[in-house]
């Protein structure tokens, strides 16, 4: 079975061929615990004397709590909190941006709910069932207020107002027409640009509001420590920002808040911010004086977070020769009832847009709008998949209109090596130093048979096949040479134990993609030890230095760079001590892993006998009281380089039922040095499955009568692909471009989000190629396809 095209060994790069661990297939350290059921997740934690909590949620999309009677619940023995029992502070649960870019409009518990599911009160009791019954015993009187479910409607003067004032840094901001925030950018002269263009196309696109459906629902366990401290286990992508927020809300000194790192059952952005259930559980534990556990049910989780939904008005102009000359984009972003990262998303949409193709003249307007819906947060790609879908659709259209092969059109205009790249919006810019786009496009085209694809709309017969492509990228971290509005640095501590094993201690999270695994390899490679000797330590906020968050595909790139920096410091100390013992100079020493001895061995090249194991050095250091060989440091990368991806997809459309089946996929990725080949492929497989969901399946529509989700949060009506829906093994090819990122650890870049970003675009373009119809609204369901093929709405 020819499963996948194996990447060729990199050649010709300095030092690359000498790598012994990086780039090889290795077994994951955490996998054994995961396959035996021993890996612990936040929802698995149980503490002695613990109470179970439940949250009382608003049944209305917009209301005022007139009265709330908790006496029955209290009589049942439950501990109850309402908005009166929590600190009266407004906050933003996401603390990745600087204060000047962080709008605050959240409360721990509210008496003015703005969406169905917003927490009003919470209870804790001896069992979950008792907590459930106590919850049902709470009587709330609501005054219902009018609600709005569409971003465009919401900006009309007659629309109900969701927020009067919100806080930016320390200042009150008045909210006008439900606009949460706004951003405008212009470069060049867009009017002039469009005048110069021979072909201009403008379209309106509407994306879906997807639910992350991370397999572990949000969970938190809070323990109380003597002296007023709290220990927290929770689903989070950032333990330090969680601690910061709990400090901000409750005023508990930071050294008395300890947030534990624990495995996360998937996240995809859903825990990029501190989940609202964390402060709720802390408040309950403080009031009860006992540990509290709060785990959301799936239906609660679906009422907790979704992706951003965008309405794009995109206009692009090109010359007859195929050069793009101007672009204009308006992005109206439906953010739901509260801001989690509404302002930053406006910036990154612009960034993703201008970093796809070179546009000499651009004009951008981003508007984030409140609606009475579940709040939006980051979702894998952070606005990039949506932007890429719109751009890649329009690029395809332009190419067709110009009579240029869409592949060549892309190659003529893409942003590549030497160009400026906006990694996280206008304040985070980097010069691109490695780029494999051309290789991705040419090789991908060859593998899928691009030049044999049918002409759009020319096919007859019921089942029609088409091939489409989507090209994209994502930033690897939000690093840049100057501080932007996004905080981005990592921290690591590495110490050498007396037997030569290594402890790697970091706050960086691994959501399952294998970031920490890759970093362990980087450390092993640098220190010349067998991979088994690097131990990734379970850590917490008390024992680690700050790390911003595992997001923005920064784990391997920025976390790895940090670990490499610290490993080098440790190595320097190690070699200094070894030199003393071996009577030589540190710079004359080399290290190699010695699997037989299960150790790294330090040696002098060419002189036999002058060698010593790392363990012997560490043990000698102990005996001679030289101290522990260890280092700790923070690191900010000077770049946030893009990793590039390209998808070529073949679909089959049943024109009688509108059903689309992806049948063949070729995916190429330029991620610099491939540290973990099998895990990297896994990211791409998963990215494609998610892209399929975005293109064909996923959405969370509202029922205007109830103001609730049509599916009420039940998974039975939020469908994602299952195993038979994916292409066969032999029909899914993954390959990697041969590039080397000079700013990355051993030449590596990120992958997690690029693996997903252009997948939906490729599927959409393939549908067009098959049936000759374009869709400007996601998801492209069989219902929409059939309607389009039957000429719209005609009753059979």
């Amino acid at each position, binding site marked *: 079975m020819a499963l996948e095209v194996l990447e060729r060994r990199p050649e010709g790069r300095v030092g690359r061929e000498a790598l012994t661990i990086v780039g090889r297939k290795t077994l994951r350290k955490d996998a054994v615990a995961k396959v035996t059921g021993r890996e612990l997740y936040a929802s698995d934690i149980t503490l002695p004397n613990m109470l179970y909590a439940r949250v009382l949620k608003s*049944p209305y999309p917009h209301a005022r709590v007139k009265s709330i009677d908790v006496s029955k619940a209290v009589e049942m023995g439950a501990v109850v909190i309402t908005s009166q029992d929590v600190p009266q502070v407004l906050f933003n649960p996401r603390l990745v941006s600087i204060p000047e870019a962080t709008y605050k409009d959240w409360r721990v518990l509210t008496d003015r709910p703005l969406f169905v599911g917003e927490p009003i009160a919470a209870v804790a009791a001896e069992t979950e069932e008792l907590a459930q019954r106590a919850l049902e015993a709470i009587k709330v009187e609501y005054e219902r207020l009018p609600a709005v479910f569409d971003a465009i409607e919401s900006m009309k003067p007659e629309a109900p107002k969701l927020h009067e004032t919100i806080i930016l840094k320390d200042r009150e901001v008045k909210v006008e027409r439900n606009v949460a925030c706004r951003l405008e950018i212009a470069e060049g002269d867009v009017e002039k640009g469009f005048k110069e263009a021979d072909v201009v196309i403008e379209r309106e696109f509407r994306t879906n509001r997807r639910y992350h459906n991370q397999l572990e629902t949000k969970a938190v366990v809070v323990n109380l420590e003597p002296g007023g401290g709290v220990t927290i286990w929770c689903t989070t992508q950032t333990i330090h920002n969680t601690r910061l927020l709990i400090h901000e809300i409750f005023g508990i000194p930071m050294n008395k808040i300890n947030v534990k790192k624990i495995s996360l059952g998937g996240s995809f952005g859903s825990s990029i911010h501190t989940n609202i259930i964390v402060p709720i559980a802390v408040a309950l534990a403080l009031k009860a004086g006992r540990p509290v556990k709060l785990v959301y049910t799936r239906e609660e989780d679906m009422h907790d977070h979704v992706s951003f939904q965008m309405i794009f008005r995109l206009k692009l102009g090109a010359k007859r020769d195929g050069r793009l000359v101007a672009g204009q984009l308006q992005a109206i972003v439906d953010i739901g009832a509260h801001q989690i990262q509404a302002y930053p998303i406006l910036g990154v949409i612009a960034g993703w847009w201008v970093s796809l193709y070179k546009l000499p003249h651009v004009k951008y307007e981003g508007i984030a709008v409140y609606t009475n819906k579940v709040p939006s947060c980051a979702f894998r790609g952070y606005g990039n998949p949506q932007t890429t879908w719109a751009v890649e659709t329009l690029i395809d259209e332009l190419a067709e209109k110009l009579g240029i092969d869409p592949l060549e059109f892309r190659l003529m205009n893409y942003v590549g090596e030497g160009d400026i790249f906006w990694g996280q919006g206008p304040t985070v810019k980097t010069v691109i130093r490695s780029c494999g786009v051309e290789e991705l496009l040419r090789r991908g085209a060859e593998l899928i048979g691009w030049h044999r694809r049918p002409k759009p709309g020319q096919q007859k017969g019921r089942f029609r096949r088409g091939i489409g492509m989507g090209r994209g990228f994502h930033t690897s971290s939000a690093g840049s040479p100057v501080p932007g509005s996004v905080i981005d640095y990592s921290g690591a501590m590495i110490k050498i134990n007396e037997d030569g094993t290594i402890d790697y201690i970091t706050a960086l999270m691994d959501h399952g993609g294998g970031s920490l695994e890759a970093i362990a390899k980087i450390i092993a490679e640098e220190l010349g030890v067998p991979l088994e000797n690097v131990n990734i330590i379970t850590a917490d906020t008390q024992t680690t230095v700050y790390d911003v968050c595992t997001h923005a595909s920064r784990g391997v790139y920025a976390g790895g760079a940090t670990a490499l920096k610290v490993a080098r410091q440790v190595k320097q100390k190690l070699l200094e001590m070894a030199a003393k013992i071996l009577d030589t100079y540190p710079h004359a020493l080399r290290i190699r892993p010695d699997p037989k001895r299960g150790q790294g061995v330090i040696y002098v090249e060419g002189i036999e006998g002058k060698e010593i194991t790392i363990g012997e050095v560490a043990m000698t250091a102990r005996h001679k009281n030289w101290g522990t060989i260890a280092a700790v440091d923070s690191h900010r990368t000077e770049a946030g380089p893009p990793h590039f991806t390209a998808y070529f997809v073949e679909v089959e459309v049943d024109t009688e039922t509108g059903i689309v089946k992806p049948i063949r996929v070729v995916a190429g990725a330029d991620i610099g040095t491939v540290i973990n080949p099998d895990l990297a492929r896994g990211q791409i497989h998963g990215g494609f499955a998610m892209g399929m969901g975005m293109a064909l399946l996923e959405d969370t529509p509202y029922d205007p009568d109830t103001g609730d989700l049509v599916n009420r949060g039940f998974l039975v009506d939020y469908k994602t692909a*299952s195993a038979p829906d994916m292409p066969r093994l032999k029909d899914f090819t993954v390959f990697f471009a041969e590039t080397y990122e000079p700013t990355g650890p051993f030449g590596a870049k990120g992958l997690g989000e690029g693996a997903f970003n252009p997948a939906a675009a490729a599927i959409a373009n393939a549908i067009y190629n098959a049936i000759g119809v374009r869709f400007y609204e996601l998801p492209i369901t069989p219902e929409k396809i059939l309607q389009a093929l039957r000429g719209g709405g005609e009753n059979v």
Partner: protein
Amino acid sequence: MYDINKVNTHIVPVRFTYHSPKTLEEALELLSRYRGEARVLMGGTDLLVKMKMRALEPSHIISLRKVRELDYIEFDDQGVRIGAGTRLRTIEKSEEIRERFPALWEAVRVIGSVQIRNMGTLGGNLCNASPAADTAPPLIVYGAEAVIVGPRGERRVRVEEFFKGPGETVLEPDELLREVFIPYVDDAGSVFLRLTRTSMDIAKISIAVAAWFRDAEITDCRIALGAVAPTPIRIPRAEEFLRGRRISMETLDQAGRIVSEDIKPITDARSTAWYRRAVARVLTRDAFTIAWHRFESRRAG
């Protein structure tokens, strides 16, 4: 009434008394004793879900797990008798069902997942009375009968008449479905088809057809659809239209048009009324085409 704060899929947020009778007789006695307040539990794949969602709050649960006498597939000279407590997976694994009642086998095979079919039963699928219950259309076109038992003895109802509305059947609160009887229709060509959003889903629309032919003429046929009306339904007008006609794309298309006119679909989370009508036509054509092929190959071999 749905209440966001009452729903909890992590536990069964309803208190009840649990009974675990060992015989059918005991079970019936318990049902009579708690008339209206009890529900029988088979695989629980519908009942427990509904209780978690608080759509049902019975105060007595009568688990039929130990009632072995409801679990059987027996072929006699009339047809097959399937105990209501037979798990879907058992039916799926029966080679004889696959041979002789292919539409039923096809329907069973696509229900839920292996886990669901290991738990769920034929009786549960019918008694739950979902308009989308996949076993219903094939049983209807095969002319199957539901054998019902209760304190007043046994009665038989055609599966076609078993459903009264979503979640409602002809069963009295003190009655049980004991068995489904399906007469042999070995000379028919039959098939079950459905459309879903993903491969693990409840039907947007389903159809079963059983048809008899003489050369290319349709001598008789039965058509039943699921998820397009408050109950699974038969389409007599389309059957009537087809009887005595030669099979052709045109004829089938006209029959499909009748089917799409006679169903009463709604728009819900899974699909739209418009789409259901549109594809009903396609499915009718597809189903008859397959049924005819099967009829032919059966006759040939």
